[in-house]
């Protein structure tokens, strides 16, 4: 496949890590208690670390003088290929955990397949990421169970979050043209094939947590094509502010 398509394929994975990492970073110092605050910023760090590996690779593939920072900070909204799920704003803790759980389960399944990629670098990034994401998934699953099977209020809040966020989960499995091309070249993952296992894994945790998957037939998508929800603009203005206001500034 052409380099440009490969780059777009990598954005489809890497941008999820960047944007979810940014959402989790927003919680630094605002977690409900010290331990969850540290946990969420640790997960943000893992995700941003993975993002760097992907973007460094993209910079190398581009063959111009683009750097990982240009890719993270200087693209316009439509050029980000993350799913709508990860850009949804932080509301209460149960909402943040539900968003995290929905992404973690997918993320783990994705990396378990991506480690078999014929692309050496993508395979290496995936193998490294699996170790970290397994830990994330354990953390978010534990909290789903604790909140779902907790008090009446925690149960209700987390169920409401599920009812709101479930409509974004179908997009995770959507294949773009670049995804198809990457799959044909044995570089990419067939995400459609992950869906059954995904629903099963979510259901196992929900059963234990006394929660249910809503019976929605309608799902929202667009992020993978660069068509984002209104929240994305606000997120990017935060993320990009320093590089836009002070071009090329360094810490």
């Amino acid at each position: 496949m052409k380099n440009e398509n490969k780059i777009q394929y990598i954005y489809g994975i890497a941008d999820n890590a960047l944007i979810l990492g940014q959402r989790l970073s927003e919680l630094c110092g605002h977690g409900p208690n010290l331990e969850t605050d540290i946990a969420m910023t640790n997960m943000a760090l893992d995700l941003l670390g993975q993002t760097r590996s992907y973007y460094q690779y993209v910079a190398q593939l581009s063959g111009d003088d683009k750097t990982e920072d240009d890719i993270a900070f200087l693209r316009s909204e439509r050029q980000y290929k993350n799913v709508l799920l990860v850009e949804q704003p932080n509301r209460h803790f149960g909402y943040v955990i539900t968003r995290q759980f929905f992404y973690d389960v997918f993320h783990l399944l994705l990396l378990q397949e991506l480690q078999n990629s014929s692309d050496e670098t993508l395979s290496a990034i995936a193998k490294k990421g699996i170790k970290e994401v397994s830990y994330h998934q354990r953390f978010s699953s534990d909290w789903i169970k604790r909140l779902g099977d907790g008090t009446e209020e925690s149960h209700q809040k987390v169920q409401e979050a599920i009812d709101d966020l479930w409509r974004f989960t179908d997009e995770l499995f959507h294949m773009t043209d670049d995804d198809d091309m990457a799959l044909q070249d044995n570089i990419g993952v067939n995400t459609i094939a992950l869906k059954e296992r995904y629903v099963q894994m979510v259901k196992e945790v929900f059963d234990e947590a006394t929660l249910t998957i809503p019976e929605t037939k309608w799902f929202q998508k667009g992020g993978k094509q660069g068509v984002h929800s209104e929240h994305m603009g606000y997120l990017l203005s935060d993320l990009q502010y320093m590089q836009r206001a002070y071009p090329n500034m360094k810490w």
Partner: protein
Amino acid sequence: MTVQLEQHIDPKLIPILEGVHDPEIPVLSIMDMGVVRYAQMQENIAKIKITPTYSGCPAMDVIGDDIIDAFTKVNIKAEVSLVLSPAWTTDWITSRGRKALEVYGIAAPLSEEADKEALLGNKKIVKCTQCGSIHTKLVSQFGSTACKALFQCEDCLEPFDYFKCLK
């Protein structure tokens, strides 16, 4: 960013590399951490490859700079690059490194199975680094850095870090 399957280190370079420490766990040299995967002289340049413990570990940039400084002090030019595969595992921490961790107050990683039991709170097996008691409890699966979890001793009440097993 490439793959470095086997650890390949020129013994003559080891003393210099042992002088570089993890900035977040200063008792541990990067050799004891097992993060150095390759170190060879090529045309008078020391080519060093290191692997991150965790993808987002902020110490890696500092370690890279410190390696270059350490070689500059002995008048050798060094180049540092990052490799991701095979991914780092806590098994690569040397036995000397494990002892240094314990003395410093960080419980060394258990085996994979035991680690799971400890982090799920099923068994009390992580020893307090202050008093040696095994009556300890998990406070948080995530600690002060990505590689650690937070524990507390129920006998002496001291909180302490546990270096998580990574396989």
